[in-house]
């Protein structure tokens, strides 16, 4: 299409041959992006003057956060622990349930195309749902509290680990699997002894990585009433008690950093 509107440039080489050089597509892409930026600015009422006029307010808030309010610390332990427990439970259960679903979604193990398609569409839809939205829905079904948050984390972990796991299963070498099947072992047993050991280190590492991310997500789930430290964040910001917010953010940063360090250590060991 593009080559028809802008015909390729003909270049005559010194030896008399002609070669055609395709026109660069950069100007077209550039113009498209510019138009998109212009439209986005119109759609979002982007106003630079407002930012210049009131931008200092943002830094004023940050200024109030420093120094954090240390007296607030004793109130923080319980919600912080809740947040961590929610992520642990949701991540462990999610990664466990991900195994059978990834098995069903792997096209080299399950030969029935319908089952594979259904499992994959299920995982895709779960994955596209933002965690906060699933938490919101869960609060309606399971009531306000940590159960809703755990369910949201469980669903996200299931989708994320499930997708990566079935891709790894499909890339696993099938030799041992076929050999075991040929001597009369059932499909599930062959999967257990031939494929599972191959994908196990990657599976554990993915689950750990997902757990790291879940601690961050769990921190904001409280905003929709799904338990954990997010509720305090919301309250602090609502009452403009920025010093407490600073304390919460500091604790959150330390927790996330610690968990990431531990998990990174184990992930390096696994691979």
């Amino acid at each position, binding site marked *: 299409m593009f080559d028809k509107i802008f015909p390729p440039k003909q270049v005559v080489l010194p030896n008399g041959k002609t070669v055609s050089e395709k026109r660069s597509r950069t100007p077209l892409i550039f113009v498209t992006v510019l138009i998109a930026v212009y439209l986005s600015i119109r759609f979002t009422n*982007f*106003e630079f003057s407002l930012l210049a006029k009131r931008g200092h307010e943002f830094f004023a808030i940050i200024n109030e956060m420093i120094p954090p309010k240390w007296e607030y610390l004793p109130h923080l332990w319980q919600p912080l622990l809740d947040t961590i427990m929610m992520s*642990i439970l949701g991540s462990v259960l999610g990664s466990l349930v991900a195994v059978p679903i990834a098995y069903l979604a792997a096209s080299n193990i399950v030969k029935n195309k319908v089952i594979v398609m259904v499992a994959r569409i299920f995982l895709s839809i779960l994955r596209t749902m*933002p965690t906060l939205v699933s938490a919101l829905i869960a609060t309606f079904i399971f009531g306000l509290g*940590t159960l809703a948050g755990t369910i949201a984390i469980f669903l996200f972990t299931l989708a994320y680990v499930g997708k990566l796991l079935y891709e790894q299963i499909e890339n696993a070498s099938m030799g041992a699997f076929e050999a075991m099947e040929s001597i009369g072992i059932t499909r599930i047993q062959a999967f257990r002894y031939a494929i599972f050991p191959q994908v196990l280190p990657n599976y554990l590492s993915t689950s750990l990585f997902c757990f790291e991310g879940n601690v961050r997500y769990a921190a904001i789930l409280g905003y929709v009433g799904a338990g954990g430290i997010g509720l305090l964040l919301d309250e602090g910001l609502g009452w403009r008690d920025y010093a407490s917010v600073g304390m919460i953010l500091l604790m959150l940063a330390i927790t996330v950093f610690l968990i990431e360090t531990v998990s990174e250590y184990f992930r390096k060991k696994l691979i």
Partner: protein
Amino acid sequence: MNAIEKQLYAKPSKNSYIYVISAVLLGLMIWSLFVIDFGSMEESGWAIAKNILLGIVTPDLDFLLDFTTQGVMYLLVETIAIAFLGTILGAMLAIPFAFLSASNVVPKPVAFITRLLLIFIRTVPSLVYGLMFVRVAGQGPFTGVLTIALISIGMLAKLFVDAIEDLDTSIFESMTSIGCTTFEKIRFGIVPQLIAIFLSIGIYRFDMNLREASILGLVGAGGIGAPLIFAMNAYRWNEVGSILIGLVILILIVELWSNYMRNKLVRG
């Protein structure tokens, strides 16, 4: 005992290690079970679950295909606009940060301090930035753009740094030896090496930002999140169904497009 069995038993046993790890994991899991209070679950839960499913199966089609400022289509376009503009702003801000934290460009202490700053920017949850910017710019999509731009910096800069530190510097030496000016060195030595990777990272982040933009509406930062929460609080499940369907389809399409574009960019 034949040779095969001997070999089997000669395998180093890591069982005790595995048992300890499993026990710790099981202990953690049982400990975290205490966090769940099943008491909060009400009888009405199942009725609501049924209504949500019914709402998704029978969406409000007029609302879904409505192109006026109240309809799902307009809100989705607004969400895309927020994510797009936020990604572009974030990428532009991330580039100087990336060069400032690349240890082969600036001295080590500067790189270290910039990195620390980036880690802190990344740790603060996006909703917190959203709530802070609502105080600055008021409710509306503009707030969403600012928030997305700020939260993109952290990850974009980190990935950009990896690309910058992988730069092939032998090219500069050969360009210097044939007498290229500084501008030519940047244009033909640095830009071609970086542009494909930067674009691919940017597209990936756009994909993520779309999800962020869709939830930022919950704090009043524009996009589809606010109508979603209003519809839920009013128990209008048909509207909830149409919003969710629109959102899921949009995110799936953008994800497919982003995977396709990134494959094309990386493989040339």
